[in-house]
């Protein structure tokens, strides 16, 4: 668009927003300014748009200025720490070699399989009347212990010397 050519009001109207926002290329900016300088209606339109922009800015900025932002960084900082901790944990996981993970899993499995079954809870600490307490079992082949893994019940099977 030539800067020398005088623009019409209709042409200027379509460029007003970009004009007040300084988004026009220099020649067009100059052409609109030249037209508005000599046209009362377009000049008023430019002033009205400028006043609107200032009113919007004043109203919302003043409100935002009144906001107390003191709690923002402490809250963000907590999020930052949590994120860093997660990243560090993932990084450590990645640095453990695969054979190390396999070894750890195998060790856990062995420990779990070899761990004794939890003893059934005793009803009373001291033996009651008519209650036998087994203090030692001689595993010479005449006793057989069967444990119910699900309920924790222990069955002791006793046979005499003849194996009956």
């Amino acid at each position, binding site marked *: 668009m030539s800067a020398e050519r005088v623009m019409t009001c209709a042409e200027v109207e379509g460029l007003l927003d*970009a004009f007040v926002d300084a988004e026009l290329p220099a020649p067009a900016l100059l052409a609109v300014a030249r037209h508005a300088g000599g046209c009362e209606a377009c000049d008023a339109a430019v002033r009205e748009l400028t006043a609107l922009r200032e009113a919007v800015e*004043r*109203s919302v900025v*003043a409100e935002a200025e*009144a*906001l107390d*932002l003191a709690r*923002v960084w402490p*809250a*963000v900082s907590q999020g930052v720490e949590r994120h860093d901790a997660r990243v560090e944990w993932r990084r450590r996981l990645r640095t453990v070699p695969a054979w190390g993970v396999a070894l750890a899993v195998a060790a856990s499995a062995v420990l779990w399989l070899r761990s004794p079954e939890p003893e059934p809870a005793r009803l009373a600490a001291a033996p009651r009347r008519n209650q036998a307490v087994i203090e030692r079992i001689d595993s010479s082949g005449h006793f057989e212990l069967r444990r119910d893994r699900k309920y924790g019940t222990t069955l002791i099977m006793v046979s005499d010397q003849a194996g009956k």
Partner: protein
Amino acid sequence: MASSDWELVQRARAGDRDAFRELVERYQRKIAALALGMLRSREDALDIVQETFTKAYQSLDRFKGDAAFYTWVYRIAYNLCVDQQRRAAKEPLLTLDADEDARPAHALPADDPHPDQPFARARDAEIARRVREAIRDLTPDHRAVILLRELEGLSYAEISQVLECPKGTVMSRLHYARRQLQRRLRELL
């Protein structure tokens, strides 16, 4: 000399929390203004500011620096505002501070330009209230364009990056939003 945003981003990536804090303090007020304009609730706006920077930190490695840091942060904040509006639309309950425009005029501006002129002050407060009301009645898309342009001073190209839409759409939305506001506020301006 103050560090550039990009320098602070690089330092923050290397684990310098003070650098990230500087970025937060540099832009928190602007993000708050955008969130406040979009949501009209101080509490929600503060939540958005916190969430924006927390997300920004989490995604800092993905920030390539091909756009300005602030347009990237604005985009995060805008998306969070849109999510918040969607949630609020499903639960249309008023929060206690939903209508803060009902506050008395004397409580309004922090930097009162008319400390000794109660009438001028009341008039400014009334104008501010009407402007905020008119902005609130715009659609979220139009509201965002107005806020990013008038408050934040973003160029059309930057706004199109934040809103992820073509520059032409930014221009038409801005034109429509301004005409709407002018219609509502003509007698005040």
